[in-house]
């Protein structure tokens, strides 16, 4: 089971929307049994980033963890969402 973290600045608004989109997508792809979802705020997760296999964020993250984080903003607006899902899928299958 892969651990997927969705985070934003407050851990309530935009991460909630992205979480909803990811959930629907996982179900459509038949991947929902392979992934456990978590939701939080960036400030709380900076030091725990290695606890997760996949991290999606809608906000700026410190440069120290930048490489491990997928930009989730396209999932909000829908523009470029396919590419984000492709990245997530690659990580799930990795």
């Amino acid at each position: 089971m892969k651990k997927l973290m969705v985070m934003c600045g407050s851990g309530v608004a935009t991460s909630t929307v992205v979480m909803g989109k990811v959930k629907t997508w996982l179900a459509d792809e038949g991947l929902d049994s392979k992934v456990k979802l978590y939701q939080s705020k960036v400030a709380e997760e900076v030091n725990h980033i290695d606890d997760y296999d996949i991290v999606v964020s809608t906000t700026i993250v410190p440069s120290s963890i930048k490489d491990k984080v997928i930009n989730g903003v396209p999932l909000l607006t829908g523009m470029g969402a396919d590419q984000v899902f492709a990245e997530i899928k690659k990580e799930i299958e990795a």
Partner: protein
Amino acid sequence: MLIDEKFFSKRVLLFNEDLANRTEVFEKISAELQSKGIVKESFKDAIENREKNYPTGLALNSGIGVAIPHTDPEHINENQVGFMSLKNPVKFRQMGSETEVVPVKLVFVLCLKEAHKQLTMLQELMELFGDNEIIKEFLLCSNESDFMKIIKK
């Protein structure tokens, strides 16, 4: 219905505001929200700080910029969405970016006490951002009754 109208029940709706920058936007909308009892006194500083650290500008397909400023539930009394359209675009930073700037014409201030329970509203709002026709209607609309007509569609 595009969005549940209860989120606009207090009618914090401001049209074609002539404001120069983000600070003026926050001052204006915070005063309005506070006078209607929706947010606490701490809201203005909280939302401004949060925007600095975690920008909320979104460049839409249509080329129009929107912003969805919001902050922690502790500054909120009541679930509402405040709306402001701007006469001239005001610069916000793009969500998730440290450098990109978005010229914003529409601002939706999300006042949420428990956002997890507002998923539907947030999704509906994002959905609507993808609809160029609706965005155009928001830009053109200049009074409460026209605004509510769009929401009730």
